């Protein structure tokens, strides 16, 4: 059909006239690399001794991009200075025109794109990437696919397509996937349309993915993929920034934008994917990925983007067997051992008997004798003293590690910090040269870390006699809903066994849902959901509680037998409670029945009066506030209901507790009116009925606003 091909041609021509544009989001909008990013923007952090943004720009240049806008918020001046002095700014040899845009008030990807929309810089489809992408991919195919959807002649024409996400095939446990932030893409395998996007969370853990059945109205076959690496390379239409402006609450590109577009009935836009299984693409969002991507570069997965291609003109790396890369003027002592996967920058000196493996060493570093460096990233001008041991840590420019210092796994040492001599830095320690700001830019939530164990650890870490630096702690993302542990698991060299999953997960919130989850919708075969530690730790926790209660019982019965004072008994209970980390609820569940048991059943009424006279104040000591008082009433109700002879003690004990101000009338009303008190079985509910008279009396007493009771 001639008219169509003509149309295509003219379309191609207009396409060719337009320079290909790309937008680089330089900011991370989070604090993952703190304290490093306090002084240097993430996109300038060196990865294998090359600033991260160089990889991104190189990747864009390979893909034929001609115009790049770098949107920067934090440290924009540094980024600008870097670009100005880089090879990209030399007009003659660069095919790439880079412009840095200082967007001073952006707090999220959404803000940056709204800024982009406001400035009207984009004139055609563009490539949107983070400033943290390392890739050897060419985007020709993806671009072609994206464009063909807009044409009339394509097989899968879809005028509503606004974005193509470029993804890489990996595996579900691939290290290039951001741990704790994986996502599932549901794709129509014939058209590559993305029909559902599900971000996965570790805390709280995503257990199920729910697909809307409407999807099946348009797609008879879909593929759920949990094996994709999302390097955040998107080919976007011009509508994308505009959509962000329309939906001013969208912050993130994936969980807000992609989800928003896919679930919206009104927008009617579609998003596609391009899955590559040949080339490398990954982004460095957190220190875990910093580690894995650096490793991939050393191991040449990113070829041709490897150290000896010298992305920076001043570099002169040489490649030798065992993936060892040496810059010029490197001085290695005779006895030092450089094992596999090591890169050493020019001008670095390595001392005697020093061993280096799986590491990147920057320029002009001085490494002493008998040093062990394993899986570490030393940037430029770092000084390492004799006998030091560095494992899987990052040490930034100009830091000095004095003799006999040990850096355990996962430490991050910022610029100009001095450590040592002769100290041991515990795992996951972060040291900055400046004190951590109370309320830093991305963290306005002061108490985001109250359950963070590092908090208490902060003052305790010794930086050594000559140490100069400040301990920083993870503050979590500025996202209030997010669990700080999500961030922790994605940090450098984090060993998942260190995570105290049991303690928090055993507390019922998660496990309860897990139990409720047992029966599946498609069958009631008693299928149980997947399990990991919480189950066990839950049992352990339950056992602990039981043990604690038993001890408590013993101590109380001792108190009765030896007629201790209430103060002494309370002290003992407190001691036990603290040592077993027990809760007041558990304490009450033991104390209240134990006290009732002291009543001499042959003459119940006088006896309970006597018992309560002394011991009511013990109940008072473990009861704080109205909710606890209601709890006491439940315990009374349950216990008396379970023991027949106790039933007549119920009303008198409430009255006595009321008289002693252990329970207040509000609590009694609340208990009486609660659904739970009505649903505890027949003897318990009849006990509640018996209390009706007392409730009436209390109500009247309140209405008359009378003074105290004189019953």
């Amino acid at each position: 059909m001639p008219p169509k091909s003509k149309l295509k041609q003219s379309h191609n021509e207009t396409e060719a006239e337009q320079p290909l544009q790309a937008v680089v989001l330089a900011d991370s909008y989070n604090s993952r690399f703190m304290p490093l990013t306090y002084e240097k923007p993430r996109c300038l952090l060196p990865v294998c001794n090359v600033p991260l943004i160089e990889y991104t720009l190189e990747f864009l240049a390979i893909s034929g991009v001609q115009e790049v806008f770098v949107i920067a918020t934090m440290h924009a001046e540094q980024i600008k200075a870097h670009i100005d002095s880089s090879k990209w700014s030399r007009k003659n040899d660069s095919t790439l025109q880079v412009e840095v845009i200082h967007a001073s008030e952006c707090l999220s990807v959404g803000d940056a794109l709204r800024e982009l929309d406001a400035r009207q810089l984009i004139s055609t489809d563009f490539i949107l990437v983070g400033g943290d992408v390392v890739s050897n991919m060419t985007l020709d195919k993806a671009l072609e696919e994206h464009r063909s959807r807009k044409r009339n002649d394509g097989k899968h024409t879809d005028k509503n397509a606004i974005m193509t996400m470029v993804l890489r095939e990996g595996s579900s446990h691939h290290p290039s996937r951001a741990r704790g932030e994986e996502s599932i893409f549901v794709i129509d395998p014939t058209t590559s349309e993305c029909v559902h996007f599900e971000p996965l969370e570790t805390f709280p853990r995503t257990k199920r993915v729910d697909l809307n059945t409407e999807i099946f109205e348009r797609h008879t076959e879909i593929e759920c993929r949990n094996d994709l690496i999302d390097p955040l390379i998107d080919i976007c239409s011009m509508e994308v920034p505009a959509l962000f402006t329309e939906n001013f609450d969208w912050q993130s590109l994936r969980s807000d934008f992609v989800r928003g577009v896919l679930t919206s009935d009104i927008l009617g836009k579609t998003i596609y994917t391009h899955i590559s299984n040949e080339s490398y693409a990954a982004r460095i969002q957190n220190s875990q990925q910093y580690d894995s991507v650096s490793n991939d570069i050393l191991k040449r997965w990113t070829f041709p983007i490897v150290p000896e291609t010298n992305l920076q003109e001043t570099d002169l790396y040489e490649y030798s067997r065992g993936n060892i890369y040496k810059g010029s003027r490197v001085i290695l002592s005779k006895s030092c051992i450089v094992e596999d996967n090591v890169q050493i920058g020019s001008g670095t000196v390595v001392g005697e008997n020093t061993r280096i493996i799986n590491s990147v060493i920057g320029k002009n570093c001085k490494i002493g004798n008998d040093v062990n460096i394993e899986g570490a990233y030393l940037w430029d001008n770092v000084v390492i003293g004799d006998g030091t041991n560095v494992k899987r840590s990052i040490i930034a420019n100009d830091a000095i590690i004095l003799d006999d210092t040990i850096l355990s796994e996962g430490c991050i040492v910022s610029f100009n910090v001095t450590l040592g001599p002769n100290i041991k830095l515990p795992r996951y320690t972060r040291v900055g040269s400046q004190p951590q700001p109370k309320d830093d830019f991305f963290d306005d939530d002061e108490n985001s870390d109250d359950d963070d164990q590092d908090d208490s650890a902060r003052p305790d870490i010794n930086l050594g006699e000559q140490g100069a630096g400040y301990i920083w702690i993870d503050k979590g993302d500025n996202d209030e809903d997010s669990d700080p542990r999500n961030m922790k698991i994605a940090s450098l060299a984090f060993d998942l066994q260190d995570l105290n999953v049991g303690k928090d997960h055993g507390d019922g919130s998660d496990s309860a849902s897990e139990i409720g989850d047992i029966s599946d919708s498609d069958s009631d075969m008693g299928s149980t959901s997947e399990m990991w530690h919480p189950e066990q730790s839950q049992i352990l926790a339950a056992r602990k509680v039981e043990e604690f209660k038993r001890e408590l019982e013993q101590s109380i019965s001792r108190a009765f037998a030896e007629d201790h004072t209430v103060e002494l008994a309370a002290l003992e209970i407190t001691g036990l409670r603290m040592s077993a980390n027990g809760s007041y609820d558990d304490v009450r569940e033991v104390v209240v029945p134990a006290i009732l048991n002291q009543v001499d059943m042959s003459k119940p009424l006088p006896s309970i009066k006597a018992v309560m006279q002394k011991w009511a104040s013990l109940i008072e000591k473990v009861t704080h506030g109205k909710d606890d008082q209601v709890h006491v009433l439940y315990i009374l109700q349950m216990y008396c209901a379970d023991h027949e002879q106790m039933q007549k003690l119920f009303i008198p004990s409430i009255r006595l507790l009321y008289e002693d101000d252990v329970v207040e009338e509000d609590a009694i009303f609340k208990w009486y009116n609660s659904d739970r008190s009505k649903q505890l079985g027949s003897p318990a509910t009849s006990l509640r009925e018996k209390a009706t008279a007392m409730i009436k009396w209390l109500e009247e007493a309140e209405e008359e606003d009378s003074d105290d009771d004189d019953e």
Partner: protein
Amino acid sequence: MGLLEKPKQQQKQQEFQAIILAGYGSSNRLYPIIEEDNLPKALLPVANKPLISYTLDWLEKAGITDAIVLTQTMANAQQKIAAYLARGYQGGVHCNLIGVDEDFGTADAIRSIADRITTDFIVLPCDLHTELVPRDFLDHHRISNPTMSALIYEATKGEKGFPGKEDDTAQYIGIDAAESRLIHLADYDSSEDEVSLRMSMLWRFPRVKLHMNLQDAHLYIFKHWVLDVIKAKEKISSIRQDLVPLIIKCQYQRKLVEVEEMDKYAKSDDLLDTALSLSTVYDEFDETLLNQHDPFKTYFKSNIKAHAFVYRGGYCGRANTIPKYNDMNRLASKQGLSIKRIADTAEVTQKPLIGNDSVVGEYTKVAEKSSVKRSVIGAHCIIGKNVKIANSIIMDHVVIEDSVKLDGCIVCNNAKILEGSSLTKCEIAGGYIVERKTEENGQKLVGFREAI
């Protein structure tokens, strides 16, 4: 070849035993044509051959000569099937007809005859008709040697009941392409607006294709030890609803395998597995080892495997709804098949009016000026003058008087359609008499039993 005959001494140990479920499922989807006054489902005619004969032929092609036919002792179904197997069936499969209680589920029924099964076994419905060469499926099973293999088929275009929202037999079928595992099987439920997938499944099988254009043929091959599971677990009542989902889930749910103690039953008879486990040099790459410390990603290697064999390109279908039964007839009698179009004993006045996409049974009389298109007419029918029959199934002993028009109808045994009626898309129950000049569309014509 009879029921009462003692089973012959088997020459060699059979590889598979077959269990045919005759008279299960479908519930009222085939009403009224499988009512007592007509035929049990197994005997419904497809191109004038009973449904079950197709299943038996398939088994014979698969080299399986020993089958147990399970039927519910409901009404006279058992007698009718017994009569057919004893006298009508000509093939070489030795059938053993066993009646089971009416409210037994399919798994309950198998439990009741468990001691008769000594090998791995195939469970299949009596209403399955497929062009699939049995060997393809069996070889797939033999090579992968899973706990269970299921036949999944692509609904062919010709089938009217193309899966979609309007079809209540549609299913969501999840298959892991890399290992051809069957990992999700759920019936489509129009009242639910979400399909829920477990993350444990997506961690174990990160690439799941979820199909709505595929159908479960209800043809399964099970390892013999699955019988022990059926025997031990009374709560497994239905194969499709309980047993198959259990096996599917045991592929990725560690907890379930533990709770159900599946490992106790799962005996591996795979020579290669045994050999490899004894090997000192063989080192299987195992992703579990890489992530065994990772408590967040359950990666669980189960001994239990459910495989799916997806059959595309040829006909495969079940007659479990009226439209599908219709389709099956049309396909079984379609143009080009080398079947006997008009029985020798039939008396057809104007043969050219019988389309070569139709079949006319024994002793049937068709008077002049009557045309038959894309239809199947049974035996002993009497069809008057000027009758037009299209897209219909006429069973045996049906009387159709002059000038009747039938389109898309199913007429059951002994029914009578009186002069001048015009019926479209109707099902006429056994023995029902359609009055003169009746005009109906899309009705089920069923008489009260007293009236007949």
